[in-house]
């Protein structure tokens, strides 16, 4: 057979010039690198705008000063205002912390329930519901919080808290309803779905054979979850927490509606204050050019915070992953 006449081998070269390939390549490269460009453009612009404020107050003076008085100049000559962002930074940190403290344990419980305890036919509807909760726009959360949750639930609860723990500085009155704690609680509800979704995912991929091994050693269900599932899922839980924290810090509209928008800061969680994002959103319209620079400076600080949290989360996950040898998320 092979000795007989053979068809000439078809050419291995492309029959026509292919443009799609290099074009696609360039397009994808461009899209990929544009991320850097966008980030750089944003950072450079906001930092340049905010620079005079940092010069005027000093960077740490800006972060720690607790007086914020908007000036009225065009932003060219001497500043007439005082820009100390501490009240807003404090508000942001406190509300985000409250949110995490409430949402994390709750999310762990919800995730464990969905994965390990809920009846099989309830598991999917439950996880869909959690994801739906994540899809609710924050303005809706804000309105619901302000017009329903605060008057119907939080006000009575806060009143009780103040009457019982009022001697402790965190729960000093008077009770307004709106304030750090109200904003933190609504934030907790808002970040609950994202933390739950990630933790659920992490727990779901935990190898069943390891759980069975623990059961076979006489572990109860609770012990298996606490000593086998949660430790190996730790890096994922940290990641989820950081994502939730990031969202809590950046959340604007719901916090703006619930925190009270004052320019002072108070120790008590029941008092009103303001957060960085909420302050920017509430005041940028009526600000003088000088004050806008002040808001830019808050924006820069906010960005720095979220960046630090992200880097910290990555370092933590990386470190834990190395020690435990588990698959990081």
């Amino acid at each position, binding site marked *: 057979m092979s000795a007989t006449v053979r068809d000439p081998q078809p050419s291995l070269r492309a029959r026509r010039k292919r443009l799609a390939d290099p074009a696609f390549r360039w397009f994808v490269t461009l899209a990929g690198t544009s991320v850097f460009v966008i980030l750089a453009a944003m950072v450079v612009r906001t930092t340049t705008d905010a620079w005079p404020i940092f010069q005027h107050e000093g960077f740490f003076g800006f972060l720690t000063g607790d007086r914020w008085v908007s000036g009225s100049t065009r932003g060219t000559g001497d500043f007439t205002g005082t820009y100390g962002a501490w009240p807003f930074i404090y508000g942001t940190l406190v509300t985000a912390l409250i949110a995490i403290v409430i949402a994390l344990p709750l999310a762990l419980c919800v995730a464990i329930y969905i994965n390990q305890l809920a009846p099989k036919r309830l598991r999917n509807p439950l996880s869909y519901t959690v994801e739906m909760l994540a899809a609710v726009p924050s303005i809706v959360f804000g309105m619901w919080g302000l017009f329903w949750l605060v008057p119907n639930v939080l006000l009575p609860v806060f009143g009780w808290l103040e009457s019982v723990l009022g001697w402790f500085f965190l729960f000093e009155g008077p009770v307004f309803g709106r304030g750090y704690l109200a904003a933190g609680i609504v934030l907790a509800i808002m970040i609950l779905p994202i933390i739950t979704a990630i933790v659920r995912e992490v727990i779901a991929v935990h*190898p069943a*054979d*390891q*759980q*069975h*091994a*623990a*059961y*076979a*050693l*006489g*572990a*109860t269900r609770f*012990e298996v979850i606490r*000593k*086998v599932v949660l430790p*190996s899922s730790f890096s994922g839980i940290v990641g989820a927490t950081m994502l939730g924290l990031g969202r809590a810090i950046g959340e604007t509209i719901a916090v703006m509606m619930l925190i009270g928008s004052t320019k002072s800061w108070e120790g008590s969680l029941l008092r009103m204050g303001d957060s960085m994002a909420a302050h920017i959103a509430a005041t940028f319209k009526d600000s003088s050019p000088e004050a806008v620079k002040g808001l830019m400076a808050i924006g820069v600080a906010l960005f720095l915070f979220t960046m630090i949290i992200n880097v910290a989360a990555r370092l933590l996950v990386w470190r834990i992953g190395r020690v*435990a*040898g*588990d698959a990081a998320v």
Partner: protein
Amino acid sequence: MITTTEAPMGADTDTRTDAAGTDERSPETVAAQAMGLEPTDEADTGETPGTEAEERAAGDPEPEMDAVFEIEDLSVHYGTTLAVRDISMRIPRKRVTAFIGPSGCGKSTLLRCLNRTNDLLDATVGGRLLYNGEDIYDPRVEAAEVRRRIGMVFQKPNPFPKSIYDNVAFGPRLNGFSGNLDELVEESLTRVALWNEVKDKLDDSGLALSGGQQQRLCIARAIAVSPDVLLMDEPCSALDPIATQRIEDLIDRLKTDYTIVIVTHNMQQAARVSDMTAFFSVRMDGGKGPRVGELVEYDRTTKIFSNPSRQATEDYISGRFG
């Protein structure tokens, strides 16, 4: 007690008649000898194949034996699917009992019933399963307590992503062990012949070991809680021949202290390590219908591999089927 017998073979009476007719010295005897199994005298001169012998074949080859498990009419459902049915047998203390049979015959299912790990797979168990005379499926019995006494080694080595030390110490810590943990870890690792290989790296991850070492680590982890029984679900199927050999040696040493029940796909392995062998098979009604696992024959390993009472057993161990 011996209700299983007619169920497994009820459908193919013809084959059974064949079995009764064939010469006792079947070619398989030769095969068994090749495996190093001398057929015992009683295997040869025992009862002539017949109904009486067959009724005796499943369930209770040695009525006088000291049984750890007494299984009576056990059947297991996963959801609405019947997985195994009507198993009755007694598993002797401080012996190695092997479960063999083709895939889907329910041998692993039965094994998992013995320490209630089947609970985790939503199985429902009917019949009775007595462990030292106590029904482990009694509602008042705590599954975790059962599993603490009846340890398990799995098909795939499954150490925790923790250090070697913590892997072995996991069970004792869980159960509130108050003695010298270091000694216990060393003792457990020594018993599985792993101590010399790992004593300088107890803090390394258990996952850093080779497959065979991991499996021995898992056995050490299981015996660290001093169980009474060790269940092994195809413990060598993920291992190379040398690692397999070491596990088999280990089983041989462990059987002086533990009752061992091992599920294996490897018939030579069953022949090498076990004292008793149970052969399971799948019954399919008319070639379709549900596949249900059943106990076909249960006897001394020497008998099963040299002179089985059942044609189906003989077919399986001689490689004609499965």
